[in-house]
């Protein structure tokens, strides 16, 4: 009898535990502060979760705000390698910072913004950011992210000396890229036409997808069509499969380095600087790391390195918001701290913004701010021109589920274990599964 009671007790406790189990993402306590640009500093301390690889100019924003308002800024660095999973782990267990630095892509949708984050739509910066919130940092028409840093552009860094030596023109299309590759293989066989970094995985999606898809993204907002079920990744004759086939062609015709499947992007930088590699597809956020190859001399870097942004049918620079300088204000349940966090956003996007632009040396994102006092440094002018001339939002940014798996499909193509058509089919399946689970409209 006693044993039966014990078993019933254990089962009841388990059932109650399961029944009481609720999604920590539904926490959403607090939310009492007003996010309209009038928040006051009411707390003496703020906790900020940041990516461990942080821009110096962004770090300076925390310091200046802390010094000016007497707020102690507890900066919690999350390891870069597992940044997303680290944030998810803490978030899913109900832990919240006062300010969160995070992606402005669909990755932040997985934080259940409606429930857990302040809607910043009515803050003054939201109306000074041009069209950026049509694509990034927003969800269901509401702005949740305060994006301050210049977007990262994805394109080709090329060695000007190699190009000049071989009489090459700057590529505008993928056909041009193919031509550059063919010329180099013939005239300068010691130079690697395109350095690819399969060992780091994430860089391989730039050339194979982001850049090629730029034309389709710019002309017909291809990613939105996938979300709206008007096309698919594996549509016959579609741009996605064509891009992967073009990528495979580069590989098959020897355009890549021999160790493309295992090489790391860190190895690409000295190879590019020394002219061992003619081109490398990377984000502009790494410009300082390229400059480090020239002793940190940005002017000298710009003399030897250029930035091109070819796409399938014309030059289109691909942009995506940086994690650095992209902030969210979670609802923590502590009104004083929430108000102070909003005041920090007001400072970073308002009175402190121009200083930030001057320090970072890049072009301003928010209207009303002037270009950096010292002028554009190094390649920043080229980046600015690329962004102003022709740009499109990175197609994979808001395709949930797919954006996590895409690099693996491309390394599969690199290693020969995956075909472009197979990768496209898997991409469609993985997106469909994610879209249903994420309950995207129409799924």
């Amino acid at each position: 009898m006693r044993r039966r009671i014990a078993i019933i007790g254990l089962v009841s406790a388990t059932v109650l535990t399961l029944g009481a189990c609720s999604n920590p993402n539904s926490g959403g306590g607090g939310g009492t502060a007003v996010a309209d640009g009038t928040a006051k500093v009411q707390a003496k301390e703020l906790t900020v979760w940041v990516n461990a690889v942080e821009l110096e100019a962004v770090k300076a924003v925390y310091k200046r705000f802390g010094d000016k308002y007497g707020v102690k800024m507890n900066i919690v660095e999350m390891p870069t390698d597992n940044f997303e999973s680290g944030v998810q782990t803490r978030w899913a267990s109900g832990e919240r910072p006062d300010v969160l630095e995070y992606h402005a892509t669909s990755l932040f949708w997985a934080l259940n913004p409606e429930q857990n984050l302040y809607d910043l739509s009515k803050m003054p910066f939201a109306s000074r950011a041009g069209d950026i919130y049509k694509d990034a940092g927003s969800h269901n028409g509401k702005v949740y992210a305060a994006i301050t840093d210049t977007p990262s552009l994805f394109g080709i860094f090329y060695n000007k000396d190699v190009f000049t030596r071989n009489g090459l023109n700057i590529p505008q299309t993928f056909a041009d890229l193919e031509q550059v590759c063919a010329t180099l293989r013939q005239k300068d066989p010691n130079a690697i036409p395109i350095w690819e970094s399969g060992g780091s995985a994430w860089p391989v999606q730039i050339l194979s997808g982001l850049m090629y898809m730029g034309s389709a993204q710019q002309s017909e907002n291809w990613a939105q069509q996938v979300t709206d079920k008007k096309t698919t990744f594996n549509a016959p004759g579609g741009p996605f499969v064509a891009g992967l086939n073009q990528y495979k062609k580069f590989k098959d015709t020897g355009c890549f380095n021999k160790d493309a499947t295992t090489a790391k992007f860190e190895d690409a930088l000295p190879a590019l600087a020394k002219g061992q590699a003619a081109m490398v597809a990377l984000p502009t956020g790494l410009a300082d790391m390229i400059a480090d190859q020239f002793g940190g001399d940005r002017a000298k870097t710009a003399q030897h390195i250029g930035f091109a942004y070819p796409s399938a049918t014309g030059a289109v620079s691909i942009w995506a918001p940086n994690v650095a300088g992209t902030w969210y204000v979670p609802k923590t349940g502590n009104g004083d701290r929430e108000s102070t966090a909003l005041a920090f956003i007001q400072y970073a996007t308002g009175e402190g913004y121009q200083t930030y632009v001057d320090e970072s040396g890049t072009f301003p994102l928010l209207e009303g701010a002037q270009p950096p006092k010292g002028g554009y440094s190094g390649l920043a002018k080229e980046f600015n021109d690329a962004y102003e001339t022709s740009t499109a939002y990175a197609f994979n940014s808001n395709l949930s589920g797919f954006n996590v798996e895409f690099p693996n499909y491309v390394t599969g193509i690199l290693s020969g274990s995956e075909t472009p058509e197979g990768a496209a089919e898997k991409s469609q399946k993985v997106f469909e599964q994610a879209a249903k689970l994420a309950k995207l409209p129409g799924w």
Partner: protein
Amino acid sequence: MTGATRTATRRWWHFAAPALALTIGFFLIPFLLNVYFAFTDWTGFTAAIAPNGLDNFIGLAEAGILGNAIRVTVFYAVIAMILQNAVSLGLALLLQRTTAFNSWLRTLFFIPVLISPLAAGYIWGALLSPVGPLNQAIGLVVPGFDFAWLGSGGSALVSVAFIDVWKWSGLVTLVYIAGLNAIPPSLIEAAMIDGASAWQRFWRVKFRLLAPAFTFSVVVTFLGALNAFDIVQATTRGGPGAATTVLNIAMFRQYTGGFFGSASALSLVITILVVGIGIPLIAFLRRREVEA
């Protein structure tokens, strides 16, 4: 039964309670929650969690994630288990006698066990690079040798399984040495007097009597390898393609994307694999012990 014995019998649970509480709190409840969440649509995207039947498993299977991850995980575990036991048994036979030199060698082979799996992964990632020390050494015999061990599907999986073998063989070796030393020397002497050769002494006497150590080592290495994650994450991150995407790597990606229900489903598959393979394996090996 005396009064003191009765009191002791009544109070047994006082001693069992801490262990029981820890087991329930840190094993049973998380396990039951994982089973429950595997059949729900739990994501970070919305607040509600609702049962969704087998949808997570079906979705993962249709996307080619589930079948591939099971195949890769089992293949990885089989390679790791076979190599680890073969290498460890060989080392144990060589280092069985306790001499100063053997003790030094045992320590040397045990050092990898103490290294963090992530560190082991990073070290071997560098050693196996196309321009790394291994290829340079091979290049002395085969000039220009630059094979990317971690860059093609088949060799990448075998390479990461080999790192697992390197990491844990020292521990399994100690188990086999303990097993060998537990065999009564008189049995070996009797076999020698009967004219048994070295191979016959090993195969017909030692290997038979090593059955308990063999059971333990095979089960631990195989089930341990089914849980592979850190070494793979540090070397290939599941690539190239899906060549080394073991179940835990696939689960980690689902989790990173905020798909916690799907991640739980993959976690449950690991549990099913461990139980589904582990219990028959143990039963088979225990039967073999009795026969031995």
